[in-house]
């Protein structure tokens, strides 16, 4: 293994040292890449990981069950600090990188630490999008992104009654469900006319809305938030467990564009994410909507710098779900390891809503277009709805509600681009019927 390591960054030790890999972002994407890399060649790099959060690496996807009280923080830890030590990886948790000096091949952290690199992996993830309305910065207005947010919500649930979740997407509904389970009065405010419009078509969304309302959620569709209202600074309201600024004014409600108002002790914004590319942009790396990488996950601007996860843009696409990120990690690791024989190819993705008792599965393009064909099944009494979108006799998208057992099978057919014309008439009825006929 002969990496072309530039002389300028060679350390002054006598023994020829291992090349250095610096990973910026101690999240799922970055650490998955490290894991893949270790599988290929555990001793290749001297690895340093910087993370903004003061933990090891945890499974962000499982924050909802933690919020809902179904899992504990320990349950969702993927890599503990011990793991890093055991693998000889230097971890700087709670110390985010603030600058990259590409000329010197050095990163600088918030605490002033400078670490040189031969290869740099950017996995800075994304930031929750906070809608810029007056009051968005009030205490008690949070996003749903990390463990800290979960703790804030759990604390609020102990002391407060009323929560408003802005955003009726996957994350928003999971947050709302979690808060509901924690005993709060929860209202979901959504700007669109149906829930989870990126994952569900209207009939499925209507079923979901029904099911959630039955559980006690209040859902307001087509509602635009105009302003988040705060208490005056001398408010006598008790201010407990709301993190920093607990003694100042705090959120007390929302006003909508139609003028109506609603009380809230906690506002969770779950209206989307933005790729976190501040660092990359500052380092002069080519960014569009996100940090642009090629099929090897190498940035276009700097061959030493790779990037994976929610911060990247690959062929116009950005990413928010875990499956494609796993693929990226695998590809990126082979290139970091110098094997260089894989290309990242985008595949369809599937979604499940992690709300216990609500079965929902969606994948691919389920809205369809002029050249797609719909297979639609509904059994409202049983709460079941299925829609398969076909294109050229192949599954192009799936929405399942209520009866999701065949979701993975449909997804597999979709990824394999299997021709389903032979059993099209049975497809919607599931795998067992299709295989019985075969």
């Amino acid at each position, binding site marked *: 293994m002969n990496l072309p390591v530039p002389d300028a960054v060679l350390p002054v030790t006598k023994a020829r040292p291992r090349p250095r890999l610096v990973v910026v972002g101690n999240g799922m994407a970055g650490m998955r890449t490290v894991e893949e890399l270790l599988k290929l060649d555990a001793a290749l790099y001297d690895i340093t990981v910087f993370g903004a959060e003061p933990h090891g690496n945890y499974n962000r996807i499982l924050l909802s069950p933690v919020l809902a009280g179904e899992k504990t923080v320990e349950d969702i830890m993927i890599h503990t600090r011990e793991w890093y030590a055991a693998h000889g990886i230097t971890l700087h948790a709670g110390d985010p990188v603030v600058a990259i000096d590409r000329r010197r091949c050095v990163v600088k952290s918030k605490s002033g630490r400078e670490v040189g690199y031969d290869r740099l992996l950017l996995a800075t993830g994304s930031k929750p999008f906070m809608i810029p309305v007056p009051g968005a910065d009030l205490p008690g207005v949070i996003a749903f992104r990390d463990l800290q947010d979960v703790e804030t919500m759990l604390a609020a649930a102990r002391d407060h009654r009323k929560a408003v979740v802005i955003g009726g997407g996957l994350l928003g509904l999971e947050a709302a469900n979690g808060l509901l389970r924690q005993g709060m009065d929860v209202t979901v405010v959504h700007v669109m006319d149906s829930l989870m419009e990126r994952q569900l078509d209207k009939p499925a969304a209507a079923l979901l809305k029904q099911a959630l309302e039955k559980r006690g959620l209040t859902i307001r569709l087509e509602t635009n938030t105009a302003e988040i209202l705060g208490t005056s600074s001398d408010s006598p309201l008790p201010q407990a467990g709301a993190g920093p600024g607990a003694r100042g004014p705090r959120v007390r409600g929302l006003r909508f564009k139609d003028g109506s108002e609603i009380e809230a002790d906690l506002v969770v914004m779950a209206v989307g994410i933005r790729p976190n590319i501040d660092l990359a942009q500052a380092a002069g790396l080519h960014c569009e909507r996100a940090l642009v990488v090629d099929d090897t996950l190498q940035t276009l601007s700097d061959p030493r710098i790779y990037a994976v996860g929610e911060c990247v843009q690959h062929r116009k696409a950005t990413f928010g779900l875990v499956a494609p990120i796993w693929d990226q990690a695998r590809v990126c690791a082979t290139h970091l390891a110098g094997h260089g024989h894989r290309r990242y190819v985008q595949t369809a993705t599937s979604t499940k809503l992690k709300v216990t008792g609500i079965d929902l599965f969606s994948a691919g393009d389920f809205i369809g277009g002029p050249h797609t*064909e*719909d*297979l*639609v*099944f*509904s*059994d*409202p*009494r*049983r709460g079941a709805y299925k829609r398969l979108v076909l294109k050229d006799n192949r599954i192009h998208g799936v929405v399942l509600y209520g009866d999701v057992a065949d979701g993975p099978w449909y997804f597999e057919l979709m990824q394999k681009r299997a021709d389903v014309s032979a059993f*099209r*008439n*049975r497809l*919607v*009825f599931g795998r*067992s*019927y299709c295989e*019985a006929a075969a």
Partner: protein
Amino acid sequence: MSARGAVKTTCPYCGTGCGVDVRLAPSGIEVAGDAQHPTNAGRLCVKGAALGETLVPDGRLLYPQIRESGIENRESLKRVTWDTALDVVASGFQRIIEEHGPDAVAWYVSGQLLTEDYYVANKLVKGFVGTANIDTNSRLCMSSAVAGHKRAFGEDIVPVSYADLELADLIVLVGSNTAWCHPILYQRIVKAKQRRPEMKVVVVDPRRTATTDAADLHLPIRAGTDVWLFNGLLSFLHQHGIVDTAFVDAHTTGLPRTLAIADNTAGNLRGVAKQCGIDETLLGEFYRLFARSEKAITAFSMGVNQSSAGTDKVNSIINCHLLTGRIGKPGAGPFSITGQPNAMGGREVGGLANMLAAHLDLDNADHRALVQHFWQSPKIAERPGYKAVDLFEAIDAGQVKAVWIMATNPVVSLPDADKVKRALARCELVVVSDVMERTDTTAFAHVLLPALAWGEKDGTVTNSERRISRQRAFLPPPGEAKPDWWMLAEVGRRWGYTAQFSYSGAHEIFDEHARLTAAGNRESGIVEEQDAAPHALRYLNLGGLAGMTREQYDALAPVRWPVPSQNALAFNDSRFPLPDSRPFSDGRFYTPDRRARFVPTMPRLPAHARDDDFPLVLNTGRVRDHWHTMTRTGLSPRLAAHIDEPYVDLHPQDALLCGVREGDLARVTTRWGSLVARVRSSGEMPRRNVFVPIHWNGQYASDARVGSLVNPVVDPVSGEPEFKHTPVRVEHFAVLWHGFVLSRRPVPMRDVTWWTRVTGARFLRYELAGRVTVSDWSGFARSALGAPADADWLEYEDRSAGLYRAAHVVEDRIEACVFVSPRADLPSRAWLSGLFAKDRLEDRDRLGLLIGEPPDRGADTGPTICSCFGVGRNTLIDAIRGGCHSADALGRKLRCGTNCGSCIPELKNLIATALEPA
């Protein structure tokens, strides 16, 4: 009636006339074969066995009704009292008779009527209206046999009994799908053949029907060439010296001319084989078989009778029996097997337009005088009236202005049936007495009279072997329904003939009928005062049955006529069975010179030949599990299971040439009309022949009355229409969608181009097809099935493929479901149908609901093959693969085919197919 509470009665279906035991059990009506009845000895075919299922109140006509305005407006029918209805009928007929003469009115009656009904109708019309305009649907069935009998024997006498079939060494079945149409007779033949394997069966039929299964020889002759075949046989027998010279010399006339014509037209095998379109060696084999079988019976049905040369066909058959003296002997003779339960009874009372009464002749002044005197009637018809087809022509032409239709459905069953519709629409006064409120014919009635049905009416019927059996009532009359004879008598009384029509019950009518058969009959023991009439001699004689009390009549055991009065003592005591009288055993016939007639039969082809526009030949007939226009069998789920839809059967090559495919719909067109039916290629059809069943009509299908296609050509002697030969064209019937609906309630058929309705167990099934695009299937289905907006409604749609399926569930019970596809590739109805028997759908049922099958396939038994035990195709195939390689083995395992046996040919086919190497 037996001591155990069973009512003994007679089956209302085919001319076999099986005895039926009916028990009124708390769970319903139990029907079983009458073990003591000589015809069936306890067996019943599937139709008979399902009689209980047809005794439902659905659709019955319960009250007299009168139409106030136009025909088109069904709603204008108004319930009236019997008095009002009968007054309208009596005065309506009287006015027309007064204005236009007695020939301006007519009766069209039925072989479904009991002998007593028939008798009163015939008496009223011929003696009190003074016209012979009374004809019957038996005209469509066996009038050629009657005419043939009269020409050859001088009287309408069937010389053979069922027991003879078991004695015969050779049975030739001509134009008879006995296996399906007379299953019990067929089973008797099959059993006899099993006992005596040397017994031979020959089937002459263009179709390879289920009957051919038991045949040693099958002669698939070209439709309509029977006379060549039997002329050829006559010539062959004569050439080979198979002639009973003594019999011919002593008891027949007319042989030389008959033989000359036979020799000239069918004198050599090769010519006959070519004409009949069969193999010469096959033909020779048949002729030799016939030649050497002294005990030979030629049994024939509609394939012979329903022809423009029907009477000649009958006589060409009889000629062969006369030549060989094979008549009037055990196990030998020509045997007309009738189609209807009481066609024979109608013939006995003379209820046809060319008969007078009791085997007496219209054109004989002495006979007329005898009858008029006997009836004490003011007049007597003097010339033949209109026969069925002509009758409706005359109505259409305005010559007949009033008609009373009884117990039949001519809008469905007559040839050129659209013309019948037109005729009835024009007719001044149409009276219909029926048991069903809505038939294709009652739609044209001005007066509707509710008649009693089987199980309610009381009287006698005569079967194909001249056996008189009682039909007994075991149910109370529904609504205000009355016997047909009562309605007729009431009209007679309103015309002032109180004395002549004052019957207190069916037994009095039977008694009068029995006395009339003896009147002037020199061989009878009863001497009537006017016994001077010459030539009133006839074989029909029921003198021995005259004078019965109501109790004796009620207890009457099945008896074959004649029953002359010298046998009177024995007629009703089973310990002293009547000697089975064998007509012609003394060589004496009922012509004036007591000799049988050879009738020269000049062969001729069917009236209308195939041509480029209509290149195929349409044949019509029955299917196994249905009867006539389905007013009764259509009510039975079990019977609907065998063949559920109107179909057109044709040779696969013809199907290819016509551009139609099995399972698709085809339009079947003749010069007279058209229908749309499902295409089949059963393998039964020869090239250039198509078959369409006669049963379906406007009540059960949108467009399936084969009667409207049949050429209105009749036999010049018998007036029987040529149902078995109409040039026809078959074309693809393009539809945009196919579908079916299963529903607990009737579903209105709107925006549906083609439909057929099938009765299921606790549901109705509709097979559908449409030419109108439906853009909103969900809305269409919800409104058709009457599902409210908040209904428990399962739905599947593949819009671009044109697929739609939905199910309506009410309180966890399936209420209805609908399946639609652009192709005829809909799922099996079998499993879905079974769901209607469940009071609660299980989850797995619900899952399979819209795919039409259960999650595990084993639960789908497939389409029913054995109707008696409800054994499905899939079950059978599994059993065959499991080692049951014969019909017997299947029967032991699954009981299929062990009751009526009519599915055995299908079982054998299935075994052959299932065991075929793939």
